[in-house]
């Protein structure tokens, strides 16, 4: 099938990196082209969000802030329930080209496996108990 774990796009924009940076990293900028309302605490570990007039909200966590070249954040995976802990990582890279900017966006992490750790532990315990009880029964039977 060949499904993607990462999505990558590059566009050339006829504006300098400083303007593109502001559009990507400020509440005002994000609300103008991405969401309808936005808030950004622009530092690694800072939280950010965007909302849309249709009621959709997305929570983001700022990861990389290297003005004016790299801006990275994680956010919830599109289409999963709001309480699902898995997130994809989005990284914007800005590169000056003449008077404009080459902007690359990479979003990665779509192929994360669900956390089956709990299930494995649970199954392991169940089997462990089954065999221990089996041993107990054998011991009692032998006695």
């Amino acid at each position: 099938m060949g499904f993607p774990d990462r999505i990558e796009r590059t566009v050339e924009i006829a504006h300098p990196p400083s303007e593109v940076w502001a559009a990507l990293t400020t509440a005002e900028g994000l609300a103008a082209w991405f969401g309808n309302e936005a808030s950004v605490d622009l530092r690694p570990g800072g939280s950010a969000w965007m909302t849309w007039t249709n009621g959709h909200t997305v929570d983001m966590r700022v990861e990389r802030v290297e003005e004016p070249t790299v801006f990275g954040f994680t956010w919830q995976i599109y289409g999963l329930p709001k309480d699902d802990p898995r997130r994809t990582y989005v990284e914007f890279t800005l590169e000056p080209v003449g008077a404009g900017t080459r902007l690359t966006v990479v979003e990665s992490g779509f192929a994360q496996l669900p956390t089956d750790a709990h299930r494995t532990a649970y199954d392991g315990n169940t089997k462990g108990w089954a065999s221990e009880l089996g041993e107990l029964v054998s011991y009692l039977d032998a006695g």
Partner: protein
Amino acid sequence: MPADVEAIAERVFTALADPTRRAILAALAAGGPATATDLADRLPVTRQAIAKHLALMAEAGLVTAEPGERRRVRYRLRSAPMQVAQQFLAALARDWDRSLEALAEHLDQSVRKPTTTPLQKARKHV
């Protein structure tokens, strides 16, 4: 991407491609664990056909068999494989092309009309 991830997603899509299997999964999601007999009472499908579909889905990991009352096997929905498939769909649904177009448009307009009213959105994200 690990091959087993793709295999999981492929099995989910195969399971979901069949209307009877979709009805069985929907019944398990809505009503909780059930035996083939329970499901045959609720769906317009024979118990034999349901048992066959359940066996296929158990092999795909979409349902797990567990002992029920009167020695009947009960089937429980298992959502993990569906979450894997959902993530693939999320990758396909993420529309960066339109978002980046809206960004370029926003920058063009803010330079031309720096003190304009809030810009009309070129698109909604969702």
